[in-house]
């Protein structure tokens, strides 16, 4: 599998330690990862044509993850989204009626890696 063709994971989280550690974990399974410190810069700068998965923290200052998701869907971005929640919050459907994948934080990231690999393989 060429590195260039592997899916790009966009990771949006305001907490630096979380961002860095998750990026490291994702890179260990051979996926490319691009990190964003806040939702605004992510919405402004990410490549909408790339193939991959978007990982959003639900709870962020300014714009929450669900608002970012709504914005993406409104802009026609169809990439799969994984929401990271603090506690087992139930996923709310976005405007298209899709329920994003919800993943409780601090629950073991084997699960997340599996999700990413599955989502990226599509």
């Amino acid at each position, binding site marked *: 599998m060429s590195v260039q063709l592997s899916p790009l994971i966009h990771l949006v989280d305001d*907490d630096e*330690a*979380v961002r*860095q*550690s*998750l990026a*490291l*974990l994702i*890179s*260990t*399974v051979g996926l490319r990862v691009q990190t964003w410190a806040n939702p605004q810069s992510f919405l402004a700068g990410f490549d909408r044509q790339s193939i991959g998965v978007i990982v959003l923290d639900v*709870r962020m200052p300014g714009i929450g993850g669900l608002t970012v998701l709504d914005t993406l869907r409104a802009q026609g971005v169809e990439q799969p989204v994984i929401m*990271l929640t*603090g*506690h087992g919050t139930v996923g709310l459907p976005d405007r298209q009626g899709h329920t994003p994948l919800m993943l409780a*934080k*601090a629950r*073991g*990231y*084997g699960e997340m890696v599996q999700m990413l690999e599955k989502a990226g393989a599509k």
Partner: protein
Amino acid sequence: MTTTLKRFLPWIAAWLIATVAGGVLLARAELATLREAFETDARIAHRLLSQRAVQHDAVLATLALLGGPDIQSRPEARLPSVYPQILSVQRRDRDGQWAERRVNPFEAQSRQLRRAVLGQIDLDQGRFDLVLGADPTSYLLTIDVRTMVPWSEWPMDPATSPVRVTLNHGDQHFVVQVGRAGTSSAAGWPFDFHKTLADESQPLDLVARRDIGWAELPWAWMVAWSLLWAAVLAGAQALLRQRQERQRAEELLRLGQVTRLNTLGELAAGMAHELNQPLTAVLANTQAASRLLAEDTPDLETVRLAMTQAVAQARRASDVLGRLRRSVERPDAGGELESINLLDITRKALYLLEPTFKQHHLAPDITMTGPAFKVLADPIGLEQVIHNLLMNALQALEQVPLQERSLHLTIGSTDTLGTLTLQDSGPGIAAHVLPRIFEPFFTTREGGLGLGLSLCETLVSNMGGTLTARQHSPRGAVFEVRLPLALLSGRAS
């Protein structure tokens, strides 16, 4: 000011209505009594004067029967000394003449009616003549009205009585008794009595009148009545306000509990978020490290970096907990210790919960063994401890039938300690629960936080005391608070 007025307005209105209604009733009752007394007096006066009038007829009839020109004794000459009201007696024998010619028509009238008739009337001067035409001799009595009144039997004191009594005939009148009628102001209640004397020959009108003035109303009773109502309503108002204040206090207490729970919920949510971040980082780092180490040629530098990060994030989590602990801890750990009467503060806690106990048909009793004493404790903390223990007992007792519910509080002291024991008849404490009963977050109650007893134990420990729990035989639980006695700890420290 206006709100105070608004609050008292219904009460004042009620008081005014009660005062006016009661006052009217009292006044009417008094007026009725006065009227009855007036009418009784007037009837007696009428009867007495009528009797006198009849007496005059009898005197005349007797004279006519006994008299005659041939009788030398002249009994009529002695009459005025027997009947002081008879001023003079005149006679006309069959062939004689009256001293005054104007008597003639009266005599003729008397003969025609076959009874005595009134002759010359001068009521203004207080006298009238009574004429009886008879054979052989006609008589005329001149009667003094003032002396005619039988004062010894008179129902009223003529000097002081407020009743005005007059004898009227046509437009003439004689004032028997002056009274006070007409002297008081026009506003008032006039009583009138009007009756002609019960004697055909002397149809004089007896008129009695009494004016009741405002001053004669039973003001003292009316004021007393009004004051009574003021007292009753003030009492009722105070009682009601007391009850409202107590309700409000209960509301505040409930609100306070809700607020505390909400605060706790908020705190828990905040804490969860604060801890989630470092825990996420720790997990991700260690999992990344373990993946890296599983490769054939592990990138040890990256692994080391991940592990350093994990350690740093674990520390961060620990810091979060430390900060949280410091923020909830009270600055004055445990509060100021004071000398407190354990019995008083227990009663206070019971008083606050009294309505709740009533709702649950429970009447806790306190027994004091031995003399009064004081313990050294933080009053607010201790009250909270007793409150929590009482609530705990109440929740335990909710699980048993009504008639089996009881809660005994015992207060006593040893040489060094004051003790408060709460013994309930609830389901008691299971053996496996007992060792963990004061652990934080340990609860047997569904939806319970498991903090109540834990908090109690911490508070009592901070005061230098102990809180213990044990199973009671045959049933129920016993909680015992032991606190150092105030004097002793003062000596020790």
